[in-house]
């Protein structure tokens, strides 16, 4: 009980509360602007978190990402342009409702079920994390190796692209993490004589480049989205309670699917929304209504993407394996703040963990009033011309990257990864998989090499412990999956 009281006293500090409020507003604005994703919002927030207390730093990330995922629905519903990729799955549905003259209902569903989904995700985090932590205390490097490997494979399996390309992206990420002196031999590896590369390539500048700079590069080639006409909204929350009761089952299904996808490493809110929307259509009693402004799919997918956000923290906090691209950034911040991910976090820093749960709940509750204000102010915010927003983003990329280590090499890294991310995206290589490779590379190598040294170069011990064997089987199945699918289609073509 005393830990819970401690946790409340950690959260109820002025700096934490102010940080939550400001980060929420920031997340709402950035998420609602088309082309600026929730991941980008989080990445640009990192330099700011350096200067906050640990709890305030984590709070800003939680609040900003939750708000941004919801707020991406606003331009989706009003302009048919998703504000973040996580809203893309049901943008058509929401826009159809607006055309039918029910924008209030559509946006109300988005905010209400986003908040409920977020709370459901938090409950799953509270329920899943402690028992898993208990189990993880017995893990050796073999289990960690397979777990990390499995995480990487999951990221490639769920990518909305060719699985082979996703694996290639992930391997490029691992290769990037090889750079530097921090390897089992302590020798400069792939540094090409550069002293700047000795320290390796930092994940944060790479992430900023991939998610922010390449987005600005894309904006250079596309035309400006249309302006939102000013309109007066009726009551946003009217009828939501009736919908909650009517569509209880789809909502629950959305929450659960979101939680599962969130826990899977690498798969995040966008994946959760796509899966939930198509699931909702498949199991619905009236699938013919989908696409014509029917609330069911919107409820299920809207709940799902916010639920995935909280459960994405489960593997991140327990194993340091990011559940999605947002937690990939959050892990960096956790390390910086001395909250190193690992099962012991739940015993040694229990009050911090409870504080984290409280922040999640708090962020999802204030999402409702702040979200309603944002919906009413949307016409104003979305009027900001892209030519005014993007230059500031470029500037923040430069200064933010500089602030992470007070060196200019980080800024050059941002530029390089902007180009890499842009070219990869254009050619169908999912960048999220690469990011995961960069973030997890050191951990994978460490677990792999330590295990190999322990086993004296033998492969057998990798499979002899029971949990390791199960994880290994899952990983190998994931690895052979694209090969199997390819053989299957090839056989069908021949037959």
């Amino acid at each position, binding site marked *: 009980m005393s830990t819970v009281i401690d946790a409340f006293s950690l959260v109820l500090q002025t700096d934490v509360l102010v940080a939550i409020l400001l980060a929420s507003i920031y997340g709402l604005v950035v998420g609602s602007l088309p082309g600026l994703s929730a991941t980008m919002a989080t990445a640009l927030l990192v330099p700011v978190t350096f200067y906050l207390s640990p709890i305030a730093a984590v709070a800003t990330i939680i609040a900003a990402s939750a708000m941004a995922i919801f707020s991406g629905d606003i331009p989706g519903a009003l302009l048919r342009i998703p504000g973040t990729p996580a809203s893309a799955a049901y943008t058509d549905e929401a826009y159809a409702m607006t055309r039918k003259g029910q924008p209030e209902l559509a946006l109300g569903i988005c905010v209400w079920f986003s908040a409920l989904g977020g709370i459901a995700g938090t409950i799953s985090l509270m329920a899943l994390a402690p028992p898993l932590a208990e189990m993880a205390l017995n893990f050796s490097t073999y289990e960690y190796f397979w777990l990390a490997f499995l995480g990487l494979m999951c990221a490639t399996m769920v990518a909305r692209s060719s699985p082979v390309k996703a694996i290639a992206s992930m391997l490029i990420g691992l290769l990037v993490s*090889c750079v530097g002196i921090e390897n089992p031999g302590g020798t400069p590896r792939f540094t090409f004589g550069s002293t700047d590369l000795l320290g390796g390539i930092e994940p944060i500048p790479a992430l900023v480049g991939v998610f922010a700079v390449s987005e600005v*590069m894309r904006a250079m080639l596309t035309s400006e989205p249309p302006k939102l006409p000013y309109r007066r909204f009726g009551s946003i929350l009217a009828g939501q309670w009736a919908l909650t009761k009517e569509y209880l089952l789809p909502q629950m299904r959305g929450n659960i699917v979101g939680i599962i996808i969130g826990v899977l490493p690498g798969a995040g809110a966008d994946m959760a929304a796509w899966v939930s929307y198509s699931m909702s259509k498949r199991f619905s009693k009236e699938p013919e209504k989908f696409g014509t402004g029917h609330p069911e799919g919107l409820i299920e997918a809207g709940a799902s993407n916010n639920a995935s956000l909280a459960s994405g923290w489960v593997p991140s906090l327990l194993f340091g394996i990011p559940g999605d691209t947002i937690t990939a950034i959050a892990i960096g911040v956790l390390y910086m703040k001395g909250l190193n991910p690992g099962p012991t976090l739940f015993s040694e820093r229990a009050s911090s963990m409870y504080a984290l749960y409280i922040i999640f709940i708090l962020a999802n509750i204030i999402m409702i009033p702040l979200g309603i204000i944002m919906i009413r102010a949307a016409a104003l915010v979305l009027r900001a011309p892209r030519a005014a927003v993007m230059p500031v983003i470029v*500037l923040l990329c430069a*200064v933010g990257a500089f602030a992470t280590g007070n060196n200019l*090499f980080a800024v050059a890294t941002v530029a390089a990864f902007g180009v890499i991310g842009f070219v990869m995206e254009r050619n169908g290589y999912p960048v999220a998989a690469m990011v995961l490779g960069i973030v997890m590379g050191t951990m994978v190598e460490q677990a792999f090499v330590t295990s190999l040294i322990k086993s004296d170069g033998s492969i057998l011990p990798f499979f002899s412990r029971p949990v390791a064997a199960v994880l290994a089987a899952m990983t190998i199945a994931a690895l052979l999956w694209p090969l199997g699918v390819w053989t299957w289609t090839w056989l069908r073509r021949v037959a």
Partner: protein
Amino acid sequence: MQLSDRVTGLFMIALGVLAAYGGSRLPPVPGQQIGPNVFPLVVGIGLAICGGMIAFGVGHHYEQEAEADLAKISGQIATGTGDGDEPSPWWRGLKALVPPGLLLFYVVAVDRLGFLPTAAVMVLITSVALGARLRLAVPLAIGAPLFVNLVFSKLLRVPLPSGLLPLPWLGLP
């Protein structure tokens, strides 16, 4: 920058082989078989295999499915050059290089010119490249760097070089 799968696949093969070769030449840890060479070797070989599969078009149909899904919802968003319907002059594509170019400019110039002038140039060019009128771009180029500078040097205490334009009356060094 849309390249065929064959080109990117071959690039992956080359990168993988180079990584594996470079990794294998790293000095081992004395008295141990496993050293810093193992991981790049494994990753490089994996990358080369993936590159080969990509070059032969394995898994391509997944991409087409995903693209069809996306095309359905983004039908209204005008697509840019490269995958747009209307042909546009080749130099339009180069506009994409403006943001990374400006970041490199920042690396080179910020210590000599100072933060405010460098940032002003960056904001001005990005804004004009996105089609802003000077009426918007110039005030933005003056205001945004000042604001960012105040936030970073005052609130976050990140020292930004003042260079040619020290502003002691604003409390900036």
